[in-house]
């Protein structure tokens, strides 16, 4: 039970979604609380017996027709005592909560508004109080005031006032600096007027929520205090005192403990549930999720299964070969939506293949698909991914784990988030060496210092002991590259590895990739949206659009002679150092979201050269040089590019 104010859920928006929105549950909760209120008011009429009427002849009986819930040690009717207990529960909750609000809110408003020494002293006292277990605070206050329902509720009121105090103070601190409060002060409004008119209304919503939470906590605390004999005093019937009796007669009639316990649980659950609902509706406003509308009729989520694209020619030095890969993600309206279709590519030993395209074209997912790390719900449904002659899609998890790191590794976009913040960078490289290559602790550490040195970080032995947050972005990316290369993989997937870095650092990292490729001889799949970067580092470039490859060519050929209108558009949108100020042409429209792709050419809606044939599915054609466009090679297109 949470008698402690600090473990009580706080009323301020927490961002955490909790179940409790089901209308049926809310209905039940309201019904339970209504019943409680009615029983409390009409206890005299509803209860079958006087709750204090003793009948020792009938003591400790189980449930019967005369006594539905049995009798206690003095032969008193349990049902009647339970009903009268409702009254005590309502009084207790009302008293303690009222005291907590009346005590906590004004003090909180005052110290929050005045600040300074008052704030400091009161907050230190509050901290001291909340560092003692709540029940002990209540016990001490009861020692001063004496036991009994009303005194115990004053004690709980004082205890729970700390949470209202902090809440009111927090709101004031937030509002005090708001423009409208400051301007009210400037025009000379008095402090009390500012507090009442401008600040108090902002406290009302979280206050209401906090009240419901406090009511639940008070009910539990009252039961606890009465149970240990410091709250409601016998013979008065409260759920806590009934449990006290039940505990004493556990061996004779354990059923005595059930009815009051159920009453407490049902009441507190109902109050908490209403509190949750209030918090969700008040604390957050009404959050409207974007409407996942079904795609328009002429678009299709599903695709024709067959794609007649030309096979990628086999090469002798082939490291990676991806054929007809299709990747699906869970759709917002159920079902699955394709994000990558009919994707084929191959990379030779020591070669750098660039994947370019706008965000959302599926470049990154392609990299993750090769590693088998697509994430929850996302899956590759068609095609093959052959790395060093083995189809990775058929490997079990352990086999894939074996391949990752040893044969293929990945460098991510943001180096500051791709290194684990809890461990030193040296230990993160050493861990890979120990797990993947079975090196000893000391050996692995020495090797990781070597690697850190190799990627061009000065004072490597010292930097190995640094945590990621102590390194600059460029430095962290060097470490990430060192880790990726630690097991000498034949393929390195680099996902926008320079995008998050400063422009000056970008070039250094690109140079590092080139140097390392010369030394380690790995192939690189280089994912980037930056054509200048691709032109700088890649041997061949594949252009992706809306989940498919639209053009693939050697880097010089692609830049000199783009064959797909999308590639031409991308190239003409590239800034050149030579021309000064001409406005950059842009491709009109946006990349269509997965699930809204046109059935034919996916670029058709943005293309200036659209013809009727573009409404059919277009295959990728050609061998060394591939393009997915029915009009590729036509003079009109050539002239435009």
């Amino acid at each position, binding site marked *: *039970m949470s008698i402690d104010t600090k473990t009580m859920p706080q009323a301020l928006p927490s961002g955490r979604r909790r179940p409790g929105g089901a209308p049926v549950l809310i209905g039940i909760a309201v019904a339970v609380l209504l019943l409680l209120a009615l029983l409390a008011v009409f206890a005299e009429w509803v209860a079958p017996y006087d709750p204090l009427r003793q009948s020792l002849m009938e003591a400790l009986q189980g449930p019967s027709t005369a006594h539905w819930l049995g009798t206690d040690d003095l032969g008193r009717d349990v049902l009647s005592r339970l009903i009268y207990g409702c009254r005590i529960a309502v009084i207790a909750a009302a008293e303690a909560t009222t005291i907590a609000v009346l005590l906590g809110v004004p003090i909180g408003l005052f110290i929050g508004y005045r600040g300074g020494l008052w704030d400091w002293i009161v907050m230190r006292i509050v901290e001291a109080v909340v560092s003692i277990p709540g029940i002990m605070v209540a*016990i001490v206050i009861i020692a001063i005031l004496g036991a009994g329902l009303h005194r115990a509720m004053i004690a709980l009121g004082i205890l729970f006032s700390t949470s209202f105090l902090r809440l009111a103070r927090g709101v004031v601190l937030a509002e005090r600096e708001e423009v409208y409060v400051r301007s009210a002060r400037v025009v000379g409004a008095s402090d009390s007027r500012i507090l009442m008119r401008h600040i108090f209304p902002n406290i009302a919503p979280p206050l209401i929520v906090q009240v419901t939470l406090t009511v639940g906590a008070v009910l539990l605390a009252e039961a606890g205090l009465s149970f240990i004999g410091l709250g409601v005093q016998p013979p008065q019937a409260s759920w806590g005192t009934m449990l006290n009796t*039940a505990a004493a007669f556990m061996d004779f009639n354990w059923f005595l403990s059930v009815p009051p316990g159920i009453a407490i649980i049902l009441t507190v659950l109902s109050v908490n549930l209403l509190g949750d609902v209030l918090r969700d509706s008040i604390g957050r406003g009404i959050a409207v999720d974007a409407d996942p509308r079904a795609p328009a009729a002429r678009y299709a989520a599903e695709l024709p299964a067959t794609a007649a694209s030309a096979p990628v020619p086999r090469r002798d030095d082939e490291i990676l070969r991806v054929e007809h890969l299709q990747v699906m993600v869970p759709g917002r309206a159920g079902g699955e939506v394709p994000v990558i279709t009919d994707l084929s590519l191959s990379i030779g030993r020591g070669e750098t293949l660039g994947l370019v395209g706008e965000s959302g074209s599926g470049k990154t997912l392609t990299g993750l698909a090769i590693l088998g790390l697509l994430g929850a719900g996302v899956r590759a449904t068609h095609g093959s991914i052959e790395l060093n002659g083995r189809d990775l899609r058929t490997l079990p998890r352990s086999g894939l784990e074996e391949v990752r790191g040893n044969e293929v590794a990945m460098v991510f976009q943001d180096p500051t988030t791709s290194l684990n*913040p809890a461990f030193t960078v040296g230990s993160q490289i050493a861990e890979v060496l120990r797990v993947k290559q079975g090196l000893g602790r000391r050996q692995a550490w020495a090797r990781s210092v070597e690697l850190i040195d190799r990627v061009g970080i000065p004072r490597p032995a010292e930097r190995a002991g640094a945590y990621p947050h102590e390194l600059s972005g460029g430095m962290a990316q060097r470490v990430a590259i060192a880790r990726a290369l630690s097991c000498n993989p034949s393929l390195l997937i680099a996902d926008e590895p320079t995008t998050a870095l400063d422009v000056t650092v970008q070039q250094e990292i690109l140079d590092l990739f080139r140097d390392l490729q010369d030394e380690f001889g790995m192939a690189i799949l280089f994912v980037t949206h930056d054509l200048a970067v691709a032109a700088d580092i890649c041997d061949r470039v594949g252009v992706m659009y809306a989940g498919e490859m639209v053009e693939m060519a050697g880097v010089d050929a692609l830049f000199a002679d783009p064959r797909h209108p999308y590639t031409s558009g991308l190239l003409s949108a590239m800034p050149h150092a030579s021309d000064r100020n001409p406005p950059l042409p842009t491709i009109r429209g946006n990349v269509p979201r997965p699930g809204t792709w046109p059935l034919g050419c996916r670029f058709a809606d943005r293309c200036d050269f659209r013809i009727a044939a573009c409404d059919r599915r277009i295959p990728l054609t050609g061998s060394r040089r591939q393009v997915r466009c029915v009009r590729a090679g036509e003079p009109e297109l050539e002239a435009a590019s």
Partner: protein
Amino acid sequence: MLKLIVQRLLALVPLLFIVSVLTFSFTSLLPSDPVDLIIGDAGTQEQYEMVRHRLGLDEPVHLRYLQWLGRAVQGDLGTSFFNSVSVTGAVMQRLPVTLSLTVMSAIIAIVIGVAAGVAAALRPRSWIDRFATLGATFGQAVPNFWFGLILVAIFAVNLRWFPATGFTPLTQSPWEWLRSVILPSIALGTSSSAAIARQVRSAMVGVLQQDYIRAARAQGLPFRRVIFRHALTNAMVPVVAVLSFQITVLLGGALIVEQVFAINGLGTLAIGAVRQQDIPMLQGLVLVMVALVVAVQLATDVIYGLINPKARPS
């Protein structure tokens, strides 16, 4: 790490000072005169003055505070008004009992909470996820002493697997100790375990989406290693930050649950002291509890610094 500990200890000084002032000053808030309580109605004026002098109550209040504090720092918490036993002795005698319950229930809460939280985070919407959520909702509404009563009814009264009441010291018989603390610790720890599970779950779900988890897996580290070393270490950061609160709650809960199992711990001592208006005893109890809470806070702060390098003083 030493720097962190020293820093945290220094930060505790104002807290301890205010707690000691509060604790000391509540003597004067009591409605009854402690001297009257001791000498009773039949005492003469002479006796009254003598007791008053013996208790030091005729001295100025700040001197009394300093003397009391000086003795408290040396471990002397005074003498019970009621039966003249040493408060330190009485508290120390009961402390292992309450600590047994608190530590045991904390272990139960953390082990079950972390395991359930991780399982729920790995499989959102699975039965274990739903169960943990449901448990957390109920855990907030079920009085732990009532849960204790139900456990007694089932496992002690009906099945007779465990003793219904009493406590066996660990030093006397570890096995009997375990049997005597297991039911109260479950009663205490279950609701906290649900709360911890919910925190672990939400932290873990967030961590599992981080790049460094994907990067660790891309590096071919085994799944279990990634989950339990890379993810859990980071997911525990926010959990450890609030763990000391949970343990404070368990300490408070132990005072009540002790009553269910007729265990003679600090709770029984505190309830007796309230009934008898035994001021030195209550003061001593509050101070000892604050010391315990502070020790727990310090321990969790150190763990927090260990798993979260950003929190360490540079």
